[in-house]
């Protein structure tokens, strides 16, 4: 079954899968930061709130009075035991969605988050199909029908090694000449 590759090597599959796995794991983990203390939690929230009177700056960065009051409010709400979501909602109701440093992951704004992810998936699929079509096309064009038995046969391997040896010698000759 030529699912991943033209040659049906196990190593190929392993490495290709490892790459996929790492990328996906990274995607899944990127949001799951471990937050320990209340203060670190508060700082993480600060970084998600934009100061309404100083465009482009979060309340974490801003030095104005309003940002300070908001920071204070965040810490008070954390002390009261409110969740991150409740705190962010509190500010959204007051100042509108634009107070959030990133669009909320709900309703229409899912569009903001899922479009790039959709493009990623489409891109990966297209590349996959593209490479596969090219590899298959090539083999069809050249009418190569080499059986796997032949590929792994002693005779084939020996001739392959002979070719490699010749090219290697040729190349080292060139290098020597240059020097």
């Amino acid at each position, binding site marked *: 079954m030529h699912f991943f590759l033209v040659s049906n090597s196990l190593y190929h599959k392993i490495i290709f899968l490892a790459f996929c796995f790492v990328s996906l794991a990274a995607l899944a983990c990127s949001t799951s930061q471990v937050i320990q203390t209340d203060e670190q939690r508060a700082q993480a929230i600060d970084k998600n709130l934009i100061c309404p009177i100083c465009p482009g700056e979060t309340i974490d960065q801003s030095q104005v009075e309003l940002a300070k009051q908001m920071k204070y409010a965040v810490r008070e709400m954390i002390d009261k035991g409110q969740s991150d979501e409740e705190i962010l909602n509190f500010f959204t109701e007051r100042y509108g969605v634009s107070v959030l440093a*990133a669009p909320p992951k709900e309703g*229409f704004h899912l569009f903001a988050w899922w479009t790039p992810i959709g493009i990623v998936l489409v891109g990966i699929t297209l590349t996959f199909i593209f490479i596969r079509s090219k590899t298959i096309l090539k083999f069809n064009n050249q009418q190569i029908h080499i059986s796997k038995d032949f590929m792994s046969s002693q005779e084939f391997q020996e001739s392959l090694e002979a070719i490699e040896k010749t090219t290697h010698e040729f*190349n080292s000759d060139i290098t020597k000449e240059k020097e």
Partner: protein
Amino acid sequence: MGNLGFMTLMLAGVLAFYSIISSIAGGKFQSAALTRSATNASYITSLILSISTICLIYAFVTHDFSLSYVANNSSLSLDPKLTWVALYAGNAGSLLFLAWVFSVLSSIAIWKCPNLAKPGLPYTTATLMFILLFYIVVMSTMANPFEKLAITPADGRGMNPLLTHPGMFFHPPMLMTGLIGVGIPFSFAIGQLLSGEQGNEWLIAARYWGLIIWCILTIGLMLGSWWAYTILGWGGYWAWDPVENAGLLPWLPLTAFIHSIIVQQRRNMFKSWNIALIIFAWGFAMYGMFMNRGGPVPSVHSFGQSTMGWIFLIFLGFNLIVALTLFYNKHKKLKDASQIDSFLSREASFLVNNLLFLLIAFVTLWGVLYPLISDVFKGVVVTVGQPYYDTLTGPIFLSLVVLMGIGPLLPWKNLNNKIIMKRFIAPLIISIVTLIICIILEINNIAALISFSTCTFVLTGILREWATGTIVRSKRNNEIFPIAFIKLLLSNKPRYGGYIAHFGVVILAFSVTGSSFFSLQQDFSLSIGQQAKLGEYNIQYISNETITNSDSVETKAIIDLYKNGSFVSKLEPGYVFYPGFNMASARAGIISTPIEDFYLIASEFRDDQAMFRIHINPLVFWMWVSGPIFILGTVIALLPTKTKYSNDIDDQKKL
């Protein structure tokens, strides 16, 4: 001098126009005389623009405040060293700087044009001069750097205080050169489209200019981060600010381009794709220039701001429409000579690399555009900031680092799997060892774990390649290791230059991971004599000082810093207030070590009280180390090669 400056500017415009007409005619009618005349005209244009630029510098040096631009961007008290910065501190001057740099680069590009690209040269020249002409026209009609004031003021307004930083000597010129410089490979692409037969004529020129401009842009971006880190005083180095994004956007397709051009060189593939990439890069570069001049979004970069953004938008649109139409009509001529043989071949990894870079560009662009979309379709104003970009681009950047470890180990075509396994075993083992060490060290962030082990994977892959190559060489030629190593590097400069740049990326990734996942910060309100503690550090607020200069008031705290109880250093964090601009800029106190930066900001001085923010930023030091490594790698990759490096021994040798 102002008159001379304006006259030379006009003359340069006329010559550029002449050069366009005669080079197009020369190309159309195959007239060597016309083409040569156009080429000479473009050389003279750059000379004349240099005179124009010297005139403006001269006006700054002699404090000629009759010129509006000089009066607005300098003053008698301005440090003479800063004259260079003043040259591009405002809109009109930065346009002149852009035009001048571009004309000089164009002249070099035309002069050094490889023989192969000569048939397309008339069209390349025409494109270069058309871009230049646009800037000259904008200056002469809307933003004249030599405009005179009705009344000559006694003193100038002074320079934007945020620009008085050593980083500003290089960051803006590097970034501007990098952005406008994309126009050069772009022009070669146009020349290729209009005259090329094989699709490979522009290759050498494109690779050289792609690498040079990439290096300049990279350094420009890094200097910008450095400046933000030391002067904007928020403890970070990258904020996904709209204008930062505008600088990053062209960098992404350009990085993809300098990779995929190698595939065209080696395998005669990706011909039309490379042209498309450079068109994207130029589109993004023009978008960057548009954002810098009156773009719609507020930012820390509002230096060259003006109301002329729309004209840049029109120019962008025109360029893209023409280039893409040409591309659409001609791309079918460009047939790829070979195809991808396997998923695990170098070609395939280059393709994935291109895909990932373009995805980051897309995410960034989407983040910039989404607020407009939301506003138009839902009437809801949203902000797209750092959390959004971090979440979406972080994993893609990480995948790129993983790919950087795998790609170079894969052979071209890949017909033999034994080689692959040999190359992968050592890096895989080392990366697993790193993973285990990190877990023992109680690093519990999964993304950081993956990133650190990936970094060592890439590093081992590179070092293994270097080590085996050096050993083989030294055995074969009886050389001692250092000499064998240097000769190895020089035996295939593009390849080993690339490895060095990758080495820089590993260091950069290491630094970014450390500082994004393990930084600490805390705010303190201290009275004189009081102490505060964060992590292993203690600070004691000793006293404060206010110094009044001619154009600014500097307020700073004197702080003693202790680490684990022993005295480290005296720090003087504070801020400088510029009454003339009603603007303050922070001066952080930074103690940088390879392990972590101690970063202290002080504000709101009230009698004996002040607010302090301590940041502990691990590994940031390494970020500034990676910059010079990028330069080194690019320089090695650009060194002239005797042979057309098609003898990539590595792919056949069995180590």
